[in-house]
C-alpha cells in the first residue's frame, strides 16, 4: 500500500473541511454576523479547491524569466480564477456587513430568529394581512397541559 498521507491529500481534505464547517456554521449559528463569517470560511474552502485544481508540486510559478525552454509550470488559469473569486467574495462580504449595520441600526439586534420574526411582523403589517405562521405561536394546541413550576422537571418520572 503506497497511499501515504501526501500534502495534496491533506489540502483537499482541508478544502472540503472548510466548506463543510462554513455551511454548517451558516445553518447552525444564531447570530447574523456569525452567519456572514461562516460564509467567508466556506468561500475560503471553495477558493482553495480551485487553486488545487491546477497545482503541481514539481513545477515552478508560471512566469517567463527567459526565452529559453521553460521548466514545467503550474497551471495559471485557476490562479487567475481564484483572484477573481476572492475579489467578488470580498465585495459581497463588505455589502453584507453594511447591510448588517443597517439592520442593527433599525432593530438594535442581530439575533437571527428575532430579526426574522420582526421582519415577518413588519411585512404582515405593511401588507395588512394576518401572519401565516409565527414561530412563537404554534398553529396547533399545546401537546401537553402546562405543569406547575415545581413539578416541571419531573415529567417522565411518574408513571
Amino acid at each position, binding site marked *: 500500500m503506497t497511499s501515504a498521507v501526501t500534502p495534496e491529500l491533506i489540502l483537499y481534505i482541508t478544502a472540503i473541511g472548510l*466548506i463543510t464547517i*462554513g*455551511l454548517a456554521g*451558516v445553518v447552525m449559528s444564531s447570530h*447574523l454576523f456569525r*452567519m*456572514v463569517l461562516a*460564509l467567508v470560511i*466556506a*468561500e475560503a*474552502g*471553495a*477558493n482553495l*479547491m*480551485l487553486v*488545487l*485544481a*491546477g497545482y503541481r508540486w514539481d513545477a515552478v510559478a508560471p512566469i517567463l524569466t527567459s526565452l529559453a525552454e521553460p521548466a514545467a509550470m503550474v*497551471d495559471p*488559469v*485557476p490562479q487567475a*480564477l481564484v483572484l*477573481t*473569486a476572492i475579489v*467578488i467574495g470580498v*465585495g*459581497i462580504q463588505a*455589502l*453584507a456587513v453594511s*447591510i*448588517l449595520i*443597517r*439592520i442593527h441600526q*433599525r*432593530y438594535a439586534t442581530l439575533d437571527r430568529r428575532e*430579526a*426574522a420574526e*420582526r*421582519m415577518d411582523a*413588519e*411585512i404582515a403589517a*405593511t*401588507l*395588512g*394581512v*394576518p401572519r*401565516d405562521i409565527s414561530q412563537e405561536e404554534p398553529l396547533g394546541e399545546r401537546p401537553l397541559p402546562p405543569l406547575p413550576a415545581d413539578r416541571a422537571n419531573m415529567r417522565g418520572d411518574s408513571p
Partner: protein
Amino acid sequence: MSTNLVLTIALPLLGAFLLPVLMRSSVAIALWSGPAILIYGCWILAELWLSGFTQPVSIAIGGFAPPLGINLYVDSLALLFAFAVQLLGLIFWPFTLDRESARRQSLMLLLVAASSGLALSGDLFNLYVFYELAAVATFGLASASGSSAAYVATLRYLILSGIGSVLTLFGIALIYSQTGTLNLAHLAQLAPQQLNNGLGLAAFLTILIGIGVKAELFPVNTWVPEIYATASTRLSAFLAGLLSKLALLIILRLLLLIFHQPEAAQVILILGILGVISGELAAWRAKEMKRMLAFSSIGQLGMIFIAMSLPDGKGMVAVIALALHHLVVKSGLFMLAEDWGGAIQRLRGSAKASPLGAALFVLFSLSLVGMPPLPGFWAKFVLITELAGQVEPLYLLGLAVFLLATVVEASYLFRVAAILYGNPAEETLGEEIPKSQGLALLSASLFGAGLVATALLIAPVGESLQAIAAQALDIDLYIGTVSPVISGGSQ
C-alpha cells in the same frame, strides 16, 4: 455586425458606472442615458434577428480563440433571451425620480448587463462572474426600498445566494480538475469520456443547487416570498419574469451539453415535482397578492424543471414555451399587483373601479391555468403529451402532480377574480377601493397585448419555437460553431 452584440453587455456596464458621475453634471442627460442604452440594445438585437439570423455565431472576446479565450455564443435561444433582457429592462426601468434614483438606475443597468451576459456567455467561469454581478445588483435594488424588513430580507437572500456561489465554485473546481477547461463547447467534447462518472455527477449537483438559488429551485427558494414582498414590484417582476429564466437557461445548457447522466435528469425531475407541490399549495394559502404570485412562480418554475428532465431533449419545446409564457404572464400579473398590494379581501369590487385591470387579470389567469385558445394551453399541452408518452413511473407521477397543480392554480386565481368582480362589502364601502392605473396598467396591457397576439399567431410562433429548440439541441452545431479547429480530434 455581430461584434455589435458585445455592446449589449458592454454599454449597460459602462453606463452603470458613468451614471453617478453624469448625474452630478447634468441630471437631464443622465436620466435619459439609461433608457437610450437599452433602446439601442433592443435595436441591435432586433436588427440581427430581422436580417435573416439562421446560423449561430460565436464571438471571441479580445481576439483570443475559444478554448483559451472567452467567447459569446449566440443562437436563436440566446438571442431571444438577450432581447427579452433589454426589452424588460426598458419596461421595468425605475422611472421614479428622487434622491436615490441615480443609484437605482445604475444598479438596474448593472443588472441588465449581467443578465445579457448570462444569456450570451459560453464560458463556465464567465457565467459565474455574471451570475455574481447580477446577484450584487439584485441585493442593492432589493434593499433600496429602505424599510427595515427589506434589509433583513436582503441579508437572508445574500446568505443563501452566498451558499449558492460557494457550491457553484466548488462544482467549477471539480470540473476544471477533471478536464482542464472551462469553455462550454470544449467541455461538451470532453464530457463523454471525462465527466461521465460520479465526479461529473457531483459537479452537476453542486452547480444545480448553486445556480438553482436564482431559478427558485425547490430547497433553495426560501428567499422568494420575502424578497417579492419587500422589494419594489418592478424588481420582483424582473426577477420572477426574467432572471429566474436565465438561471434556468444556464442549467439547461449544462444539462444538454455536458451532463448526460440519467441521474442528473432524475434529480431535476424530483426537485421540480417538489417545487410544484410546495409552491402551488403555499400560493393557495396566501392571503395577499404579491405573496400569492411569488409562491405561484415557484410552482411554475417547478413545472419547467419537470419539462427539462425529459430524456433526449423531448421536453425542449415545452421548456421554451413554458418559460416564455411564464415570462409574459408573471410580469403582467406583477405589474397589476403594483396597485393591488395588501390583503386580497380588500380588492372586493375593484373591477368597477378599473375594468381594464380586472379584465387583464382574468386574461392572464386563464392563460396561466391553460384555457384552450390562449398560449398557456399550448405550452402545457406540449408538456402533457410528452409526459404521457413516458413509461417510467416517476414521469407519470410528474404528470399527475402537474394536472393536480393546474386545478389548485385555477382555484386560487379564480378566487381572486371572483373577489375582483364581487360587490364591495358593506363595512368597507367608505374606504377607497384600490385602482390599477398609470404606468403599471400600461405595462400590464402591453404584456396582455403580447399574449393575445401570440394566441392569434399560434401556428407560426409554434413553428419558430420548434426551430429554436432544434437548434439549441444540436450539440455538434454548438461545438462546430465555437471551435471549428478542434472539432475534429481531441484538443
